[in-house]
């Protein structure tokens, strides 16, 4: 079973990336997307996902709105803002730099 630790520091990046490809998702859908697209390797805990969403909302990277789904259920859906797109680019390049560095360390042995 994947540990929550596996997402350390990359939850924001994943959420932003998912929202950039598929805007207007609600919390559960984002959680499912992380699980599905990572081939069941990564998993976001509800306990960290929602505070993260609210934090990014306060930071202005994502915007939330309430919609009524076909099922009649109300849902709070999220989409990227312009600031969010910029943040995504920063996070992505940072991630690449980090993984490249980690790889270099691994290969140096």
């Amino acid at each position, binding site marked *: 079973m994947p540990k929550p630790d596996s997402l350390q520091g990359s939850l924001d990046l994943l959420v932003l990336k998912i929202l950039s490809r598929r805007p207007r998702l609600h*919390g559960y859908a984002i959680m*499912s997307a992380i699980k599905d697209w990572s081939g069941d390797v990564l998993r976001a805990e509800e*306990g960290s996902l*929602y*505070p993260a969403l*609210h934090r990014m909302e*306060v930071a202005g990277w994502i915007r939330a709105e309430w919609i009524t789904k076909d099922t009649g259920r*109300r*849902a709070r859906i999220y989409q990227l803002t312009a600031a969010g797109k910029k943040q995504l680019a920063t996070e992505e390049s940072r991630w690449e730099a980090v993984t490249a560095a980690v790889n270099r360390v691994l290969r140096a042995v």
Partner: protein
Amino acid sequence: MSFWSRIVNIVRGDRLNREIDEEIQPHIEEAIEHGRDPAEAHRSFGPLLSRREESRDIRLIAWLDSLRADAVLGYRQLTKRKVTSAAAILSLALAIGACTSAFRLIDALLLRPLPVANPGQLYALLREGSNLVDDKPFKGDMWPYPSFRLMRAAVKGQAELLAISYAARMDLSYKSDAEIEKATVQYVSGWMFDSFGLRPSAGRLLTENDDLKPGARPYAVLSHDYWKRRFAQDRRAIGRTFRMGDTLFEIVGIGPAPFTGTETGTVTDIFIPTMMHPGVTRDDWTWMRTLARVYPGVAMEPLRARLDASSHAFEEERAKGFKDETRESIERFLAQKVVLEPAAAGASGLQQNYRVSLIAIGILVALVLLIACANVANLLTAQAASRAREMALRVSIGAGRWRLVQLVLVESAWLALLAATLGAAFAWWSAPFVVSRINPPDNPVRLTLPADWRVLAFGLALTLGVTLLFGLAPALRASATRPASALKGGSDPHARGRLMHALIAVQVAFCFLVLFVAGLFAATFDRLSHRPMGFSTERLLTLDTVADRAEAPVFWDQVADHLRTVPGVETVALSGWPLLSGGSWNGFVSVNGAPLGSVLAYFLSISPGWIDAMKIRFVDGRDFRANDTSPGVAIVNETFVKQFFPDGRPIGQSIAKGDGVYQVVGVVRDVPYKDIHEPILPAVYVPFHSVDAKGASRPIRGSAFLVRTSSANPLALASTLRREVPRARPEFRVSNVRTQADLVLAQTVRERLLAMLALFFAGVALLLAGIGLYGVLDYSVLQRRREIGIRMAIGAQAGHIARRVTADVFRMVLTGAVAGVALGIASARYIETLLYQVKATELGLLALPALGILLTASLAAVPAVIRAVRIDPATILRSE
């Protein structure tokens, strides 16, 4: 999400909670639909409550939210105990309002800089010396113009000197002489406006060119305030002329709006160049103040020394011409020293008169505020005791220390804020009220009292200070709650009692001080207004009258004769000026050809019948006759006899002043001459008809008719007499009508105001101290009801219980009273100048406040004692 919406979220906290729940709920449902175990799905969110808190804290500002919660809770606490809260708020409001009001007055009179460029560079030139009459040190701000000229030249390049006359109410007319009106006129140096960096609202201002040659340029500048009042801001006012005395002045411009002259407390209407003043070339006429604008970087002491040298040289030169002065008086006169005092807030007699008074009242109201604060602190402490369990509970479920401090402080802030709002309303009303009380007749005090950022900042600082003062101790105490001991049912109850008792002692000490000072002021007013006058003011009217040009005394007699025919007039007499109107004429005299005495005698010219009209008693001799002249004969008062005729037989002896020789024909009882605060001065009354060396009559420009009317209210005749004077002789007119009674009242304006304010605050202080005592006693009975119950159960007497309950507090009252006596005696010397024949060590003045406090304390103790002795041991012991 913006900062703003985070703030908004605070006030709609419930909705936020709902939103968070609403978002999480579908998530759980969806997860279950997708086959997750329901219990596991719920668990994955952890404790829902803490998740909600976490999300919530992100979406709002946590500290602000807790502040809001505390504010709501604090407000509920206040409304829960309506009566005590209202009492606390009202007493604080009164005290805060009074303090703000006192600040407004002190600020407006003493602190607020003039609306001119660089007011900080302004200084007033004073002369320091010792008084000839009573040897007391004095400071004079009066200067003769020629000396000013020399000083100005002496410090050229280092400072600019400005000559500014005393603002005076003058008669002037814009059309015919029949329509005389009054305006406040000030003679100023032409370069004053330039030096102050002022720009005209219309027309032009005076310049140095207007102020070069005596009498050359009769131009006038109106103040903006006067322009608005008199001309409704009509630009056509410029170019108009008015007549003042013999001169026709032309209005050339209007000053800028905020500038109303440099005499704080008086609004100047008309500015005229100093060169138009009749005394501008006279070296023996001191009629103006001197202000100095000191240029930046100039050292003060060398500048002062230069001014001093210049002034000294001038007076030394002048003293060579003194004939009627003793050597001692000349030496003392020349020993005067020039000093510079900061005058950023202007320079005025009102400042000199009321500086100490206002500061004294300010301190009194500050003490009242402290008493009110002590009350509220005691109230909060008592409440904290009843909330000890609540606090303990809060601590045990994880409230931090700071959170508890905040909780109690927020409640205090509520009290202070509500009180400050009420207090602001009180200050709004009371400051102008006090100013309106310092109006001597015909000389309205006009003090601008803006409610601007200075007042606001003071109010806010005061509110904050007050909050901390009465809130901090209870708050810290609450935060120190140890849950274990509190929940067990009582930590150390005596710690609380000690704080409250200490506050009682402080309160009583301050209360005593306020009562004592109020007593000093009241006694001063009482003694001053009951001082024997030696004359009767009953039905007496004084008419200050001027003629277009100086007129022979016989014409003045004609007018007096005409006034005697007016129905309702009983007696008419003439004098140079009315007694106690401020007029003064003095000089050194020699008796029976001996050398000049060292004591100044005061002179007044009077017509026959004046002494009778004033109902002054003759001790010896006779009144003047119609053919008596000055010099020639004189009437003296008893003090003069004591001073100059130790043998006690003055009739027939001669006194000389200058070249004039007077034979004493009468002696009258002492009456105050110009100021009832002073000891009686040696007075010489001389005949109204004065003649020069050749025996020709000397014409008189202005004098005062004294009229005793037959109706009880002399003012009823005022307008008739105003009309009748010019009817007798058209060149005469009345410039001012006052009753002699008003002149006497005007002497005690300051004392009455001080006594009134101080007594009011003494009453407030006593009431507050009483309430405070009552609260503390009541609380201590509540605290000790178990102990009292047990004592009663084992047979203690009611008297014994009463003593036990009140002993501690009364010990504190006594401690406070003793401290108060010490404080009172120590502080009395700071207000010595405000007192009249009142000594701080008078037993009555010390005993009365002490008695008042003891009485109040006893009254305040009654309900608590009744409560204590009514305790039913059975009920108390059963309930525990």
